[in-house]
């Protein structure tokens, strides 16, 4: 094959010049106030055939006993007075629909995916199943059995053990510390599950996200269906919280790696330090070039991956570092993390690193806002904690404004090794 002549004029040593992300437009969905008190958010203009409907219920694991919450979510689409679990599944298969039930601490999100022409048909089946669920005893027995078998597998994973102990200790003294234990499965109670459904689903619809190029006529029908059930969500009372700090290790013989979780209580997007702390968190551990990755993976080779994150709930948040490291390098890893905290407290971040992270965060926000699905998710993230899309304009301004001095102050305030909860398993 012919080789092209070398072009001496091209200096590929020099990086192409960069243009920053100047502006991102955030588009809110249409809002409909349903008669039952719930909100419907609708987004169209997709230019493709896909659609989904997402129902948010105040039915998370802290809304009652965690076992009932979990089994209720698991059995939602498993039988009504008219249809068996199999018949429901077949009816959904007939229109090519998929669904997903996702339980978190505060909310259960039930999502139905289908092509736009099939969504309403699928939802009619789904709606009856979801709200008319009868929780057949037979299905309950099967689910309890499957769940306890899966639980036994999970219990052999160091990451599972570390994560659970971390959550229990971090949320000590609050309902957020409640967890299902293996022996609980033996006491699964159908009437408790039905009561949970009655209270947290039939009266617990908070909001609905609908996306897809569906017709006005269909939209009306969706609204009528969604109005079937009253939304009567009790105000959550403030909870007592006595988070623990200090270090605990769960010894697992024969483990090759230790799972590690290190963290502390923090805040969510409503806190004035949130945006600046996000920058600090990114520098520390939330992108591939972060200090933790550069040091502990790329320099030392102790781990396949290490990251730090801010996890948010409706009223608060927490900070956590997670990794799995070779058992022999666990202690060394702790020392390195501690060193990275101290570096952030004692040395000003260089302009180059700070600029890089700011550009990176802007690029990632642009990506998070790309396309109707992503945009609706961005909206949902702020709506859940009582904010609106203007948060992101504020976030952009804060990112641009934050300087090394402020980040150093935040590191001193929030990243103290002595205040961390340190859990390891393996």
């Amino acid at each position, binding site marked *: 094959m012919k080789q092209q002549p070398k072009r001496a004029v091209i200096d590929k040593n020099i990086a192409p010049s960069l243009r920053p992300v100047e502006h991102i437009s955030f588009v809110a969905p249409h809002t409909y106030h349903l008669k039952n008190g719930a909100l419907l958010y609708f987004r169209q203009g997709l230019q493709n055939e*896909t659609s989904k409907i997402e129902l948010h219920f105040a039915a998370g694991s802290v809304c009652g006993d965690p076992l009932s919450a979990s089994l209720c979510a698991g059995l939602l689409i498993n039988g009504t007075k008219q249809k068996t679990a199999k018949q429901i599944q077949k009816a959904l298969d007939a229109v090519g629909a998929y669904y997903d039930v996702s339980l978190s601490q505060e909310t259960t999100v039930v999502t139905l995916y289908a092509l736009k022409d099939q969504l309403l048909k699928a939802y009619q089946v789904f709606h009856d199943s979801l709200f008319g669920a009868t929780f057949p005893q037979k299905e309950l027995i099967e689910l309890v059995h499957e769940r306890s078998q899966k639980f036994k597998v999970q219990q052999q994973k160091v990451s599972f053990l570390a994560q659970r102990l971390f959550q229990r200790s971090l949320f000590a003294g609050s309902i957020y510390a409640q967890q299902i234990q293996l022996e609980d499965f033996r006491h699964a109670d159908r009437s408790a599950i039905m009561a949970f459904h009655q209270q947290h689903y039939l009266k617990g619809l908070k909001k609905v996200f609908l996306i897809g190029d569906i017709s006005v006529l269909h939209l009306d029908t969706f609204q009528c269906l969604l109005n079937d059930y009253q939304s009567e969500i009790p105000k959550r009372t403030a909870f007592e919280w006595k988070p623990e700090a200090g270090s605990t290790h769960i010894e697992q013989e024969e483990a090759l790696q230790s799972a590690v979780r290190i963290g502390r209580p923090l805040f969510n997007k409503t806190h004035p330090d949130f945006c600046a702390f996000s920058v600090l968190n990114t520098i520390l551990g939330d992108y591939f070039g972060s200090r933790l990755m550069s040091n502990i993976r790329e320099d030392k*080779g102790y781990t396949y991956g290490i990251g730090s994150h801010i996890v948010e709930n409706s009223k608060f948040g927490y900070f956590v570092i997670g990794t799995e490291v070779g058992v022999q390098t666990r202690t060394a890893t702790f020392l390195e993390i501690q060193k990275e905290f101290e570096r952030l407290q004692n040395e000003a971040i260089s302009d180059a690193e700070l600029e890089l992270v700011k*550009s990176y965060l802007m690029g990632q926000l642009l990506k998070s806002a790309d396309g109707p699905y992503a945009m609706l998710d961005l909206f949902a993230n702020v709506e859940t904690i009582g904010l609106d899309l203007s948060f992101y304009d504020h976030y952009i301004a804060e990112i641009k404004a934050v300087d090394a001095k402020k980040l150093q102050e935040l590191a001193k305030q929030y990243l103290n090794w002595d205040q961390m909860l340190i859990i390891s398993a393996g």
Partner: protein
Amino acid sequence: MIHFERFTLENGLRVLFHKEPSTPLAVVNVLYDVGARDENPKQTGFAHLFEHLMFGGSVHIPDFDAPLQAAGGQSNAFTSNDITNYYNVLPAQNLDTALWLESDRMRSLAFTPKSLEVQRQVVIEEFKQRYLNQPYGDAWLQLRPLAYQKHPYRWATIGKNIKHIADATMDDVRAFFQKHYHPNNAIICIVGNFELAEIQQKVAYFFGDIPAQIKVERKLPQEPIQKRLRQKVIVRKVPADSFYYTFQMGKRLDNDYYLADLLSDHIGNEKTGLLFTELQRKKRLVSEITAYITGSIDNGLFVITGKINPKRSLMELDDALWPLLEKYKGKKMSRPALQQLILKLQTAKAFQDQGLLNRAMNLSFFELLGDAALINKESERFTSIQTTDLQTYAQQLFDKNRCALLQIQAQLP
């Protein structure tokens, strides 16, 4: 329908461009036609180790990620038995940065002994995390050499064992680069709101002067048709017995693939599939069971896998599974059932195609298979299937003599 433009540089680099006017982002996907199947049996895990080293600096750039991050972008990669795929997503106005980075590391790597040392360690930790320190984690390390005896699919991408990674030298790694990383062995796909002329000009500028090299012809030993059941039992500290039945199937573009894909959905679906209804619910032998296909480019595997219930045995499952598959071979699927399966696949595909990155990866992959336009013919390949085709195929597929069976027995406490 995914529209695309295609052109080839003089050095052999194949370029695909998919215009997406609605996005402010650009995707640059670079697929290298090298996977674990191209490794020397004595040096397995190389393609994957190499993927790690590709981020360790190139001729003009000490660190791959930093310039991309400064451009607001993000990059990652994966290695399979068939390919190594690198991808970058960044704001469209900084497209040049991704092209600059990708072209520089295609031109020449400049990794140091230190980066080899570190990445070797990282990969060993990955090996532990994913394969050794998880219940059932090593199943595929055991299963591959049972299901394949000749074809290099007999080892996993992570490698046959840690030792191959531990022993890799700088010379080995350099030789691997020389052989597989050059324009003739790569496909690049760009997605974003650009004009074709602009893309042609930019790609020619960044990649045009990378010297051409002759593509090494792939001569892999093909897997012979299996003549007799292969079975292996291993004992592990796991909470429940588990099983993996694999059946030999065809290549990615064979009709087999489409038939097997539908069959695996039909029998493997939760709640409605035959395996679930008969073995999990009716006979209560298993706590979970499913079916899927590996979908590799060369001959793949149809897999039935699950876990045994307490107080039931692997043998009871085996005794129930074979007659069930026999019975299945005798039954023709109804036309509506087939149409439902196809509708579900089409729905799933519509959701996947939404993602820019998915489109870029799939276009590159189909180009590797022979023609990126195949991406738009997938649906037709499913809709042209008749119910009799499925039955005939099931009869051929579920042949005990062409099955490899791995059983993992829970060690008694």
